[in-house]
């Protein structure tokens, strides 16, 4: 039996029960009483700041009032009509920097209405009844290809199907869902929710998914544009950034996204190996997700090393607090310079940094942290060989996701603009779908 102090990268550091507890829902779902109490706190603000803060413009005061008046299903329709992945967004949205930060009760009492959890209450209630509240409009006879079955692609496909178009989604991996399925911390999406949500979404009809297909993997853009009336690209960021540090090829140094994906697809967490001393390099949500889950798997020491100061960290304050509460140590102003070890990594050498008017600079002083496993979480990159205009590493778009190529739209993380959030991806997919619809129907 292994324990947190067993050296090396090993499986089964914690008991089955401990693992089950650790990977249960981060926030337990609200029961009807809790939802009712929470909903009663909403002031039904005029032109509510929470709505303005929501990338998908969900009418939050309305859906909360619907919960308060005993209509959670109606609340869910209000949510889903703006954000078809409202169920997942309720789980993964950084609400503390979006709607809940804007809530006037945050200003009044430092305690916002728990909008995210109320949204989950509403959407879970509806989905538990197996109800899909939307129907397709009359068929237009138009066909649209969506490349990538992540949040943006799914949102786009659903809206297009609703408008009467037929949609084929091409997905590179074996499952739809994108980062919802492969890239979100397990405790944010328990009970196979991502897959269930996709199944529920597809009940609209008119959408087929072909897996194992991607641009450069059996597909190319010119074929798609000739076969379909329009194409929506939601291919995400397939590549990962490289570290400048030496020794990054050593055994035990891997990409955080692969670890998160592996963890999400593992049936039995007891079989998943994790290091005793884990170091995560990066400062975003992925870094936090990898670090927290390492700790939850039983790693003894988990350290996030971020090259800038706390104020620049992309992970929200809530995420940082979550990490430290779970026992993760966060170190700032450290950049990796070398991975040491004979074959396998045993130590990471960092140089202290300082933010100067000339940018981030190393101070020359170094330190070492023991590590038998290192996760790189320093950002992902767009991978495409298509002749699309690229700007700042992403597909350039104008308006509602129009690319430089006729009849081709793009949205989600691969497209320029907006934060790389599930909710932003959904908004871009939805808006592109409406623009495609207008264009195909000759109204734009």
């Amino acid at each position, binding site marked *: 039996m292994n324990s947190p102090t067993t050296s090396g990268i090993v499986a089964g550091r914690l008991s089955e029960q401990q693992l089950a507890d650790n990977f249960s829902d981060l926030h337990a779902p609200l029961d009807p009483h809790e939802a*009712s*109490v929470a909903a*009663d*706190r909403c*002031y*039904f*603000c*005029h*032109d*509510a*700041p929470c709505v303005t803060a929501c990338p998908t413009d969900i009418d939050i005061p309305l859906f909360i009032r619907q919960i308060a008046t005993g209509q959670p299903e109606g609340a869910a329709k209000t949510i889903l009509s703006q954000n078809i992945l409202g169920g997942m967004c309720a789980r993964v949205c950084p609400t503390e920097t979006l709607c809940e930060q804007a809530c*006037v*009760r945050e*200003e*009044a009492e430092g305690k916002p209405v728990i909008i995210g959890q109320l949204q989950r209450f509403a959407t879970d209630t509806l989905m538990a009844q197996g109800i899909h509240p939307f129907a397709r409009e009359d068929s237009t006879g138009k066909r649209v290809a969506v490349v990538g079955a992540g949040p943006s692609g799914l949102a786009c496909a659903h809206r297009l199907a609703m408008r009467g178009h037929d949609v084929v989604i091409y997905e590179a991996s074996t499952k739809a869902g994108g980062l919802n399925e492969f890239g979100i911390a397990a405790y944010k999406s328990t009970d196979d929710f991502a897959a269930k949500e996709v199944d529920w979404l597809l009940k609209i009809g008119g959408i087929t998914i072909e897996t194992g297909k991607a641009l450069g993997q059996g597909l190319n853009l010119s074929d798609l544009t000739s076969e379909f009336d329009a194409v929506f690209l939601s291919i995400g960021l397939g590549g990962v950034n490289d570290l400048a540090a030496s020794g990054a090829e050593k055994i035990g140094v891997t990409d955080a996204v692969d670890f998160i994906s592996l963890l999400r697809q593992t049936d039995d967490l007891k079989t998943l190996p994790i290091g005793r001393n884990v170091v995560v390099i990066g400062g975003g949500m992925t870094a936090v997700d990898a670090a927290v889950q390492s700790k939850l798997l039983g790693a003894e020491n988990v350290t996030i090393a971020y090259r800038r100061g706390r104020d620049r960290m992309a992970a929200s304050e809530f995420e940082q607090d979550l990490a430290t509460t779970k026992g993760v140590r966060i170190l700032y102003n450290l950049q990796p310079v070398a991975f040491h070890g004979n074959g396998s990594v045993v130590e990471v050498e960092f140089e202290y940094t300082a933010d100067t008017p000339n940018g981030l600079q190393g101070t020359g002083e170094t330190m070492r942290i023991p590590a038998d496993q290192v996760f790189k979480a320093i950002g992902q990159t767009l991978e495409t060989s298509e002749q699309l205009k690229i700007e700042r590493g992403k597909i350039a778009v104008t308006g509602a996701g129009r690319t430089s190529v006729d009849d081709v739209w793009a949205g989600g993380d691969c497209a320029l603009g907006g934060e790389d959030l599930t909710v932003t991806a959904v908004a871009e997919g939805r808006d592109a779908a409406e623009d495609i619809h207008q264009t195909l129907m000759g109204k734009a």
Partner: protein
Amino acid sequence: MADLTTNFLGITSPNPFWLASAPPTDKEYNVRRAFEAGWGGVVWKTLGSEGPPIVNVNGPRYGAIYGADRRLLGLNNIELITDRPLETNLEEMARVKADYPDRALIASIMVPCEEEAWKAILPRVAETNADGIELNFGCPHGMSERGMGAAVGQVPEYIEMVTRWCKKYYDRPVIVKLTPNITDVRYPARAAKNGGADAVSLINTISSITSVNLDNFSPEPSIDGKGSHGGYCGPAVKPIAMNMVAEIARDPETHGLPISGIGGVTTWRDAAEFMSLGAGNVQVCTAAMTYGFKIVQEMITGLSEWMDKKGYTSTSDFIGQAVPNVTDWQYLNLNYIAKAKIDQDACIKCGRCYIACEDTSHQAIWMKEGRVFEVNDAECVACNLCVDVCPIEGCITMERMPAGATDPRTGQTVQEEYANWTMHPNNPSSQAAE
């Protein structure tokens, strides 16, 4: 701590908080608990004539309406008078009064509108050594259909007649409890006074249906799919009750008639308000039924501390102080001109003042860049709606314009002197009077 000892009709009690005649005062066990908790007095649950007691329904007796977080705002009931034998109640009352001589104990009575019935019960009640009686002319349900309760309270002549009988056969204070289910409460109050009543108490409950079950379309509380109008009480009825108390307090015919104020008293502040409108004490039911008897402790300390702050040493110092300020609309000062003012530091930017004013009132609030809400004095009529819908107490206030200033809404100079509708040029009668 100010002394709360209150003298009402010569009956002293350690504080002005009495429990109203209702379920909490139905039997010895409850009343003893109430006195132990600190209540100044109780009006025992209404007694009926000797003989087989009435029966109650065996399903729900209460219905409710709620505010946010299921806070009980209004309760209604279809319970009748005591369903226990008269003798049992009388024995218990005598025992409790003997053990708590410093507390007020009043017997509520409802018997048929026949002199013999009152003549029979009053000596029995007197034997308990109760401090007085309260005539239940108020209950809107159950008993009224049998010619009692509100059925009597709605006919001033009956009130006067029965009160007269009571004064004839009973030598302690007689309080007449009035029903609000009438159009003008002054008539029954005058009748009570004419009959010799020592005091009136009001209000009894208001006829009501609290809700309807939308599955079987039965009013609530539902008894086997049917409902009956019940008596409504609780915080929601306080404004109605206070107006009725004030109407009696300022009516020249009943001015000075002692009043026991009832209707939604939940906190010390409610009690102080009722008493300032002329009530010599208050009676409480729903607050106790919602929170238990301990709630009186907040009322006692709150009232006492408020009195200390104000320098009052006795409840009589402030009883009735608001009565002279209750007037008719036509005497309100039309030269009093105010404007809403929003405290930007206190504002949490919910925008409720804006939308209330914009959609339903005078378009007198601007919503500026960055959700800054400001009052447009040129449109503001000082209606107070913004104050009422603002979730932050004190954030929006009504500021009086000084005399000599120009009201940007009317372009007219604010006048120093008082002027009301009776003097206004738009009032045809005012010109006729000249």
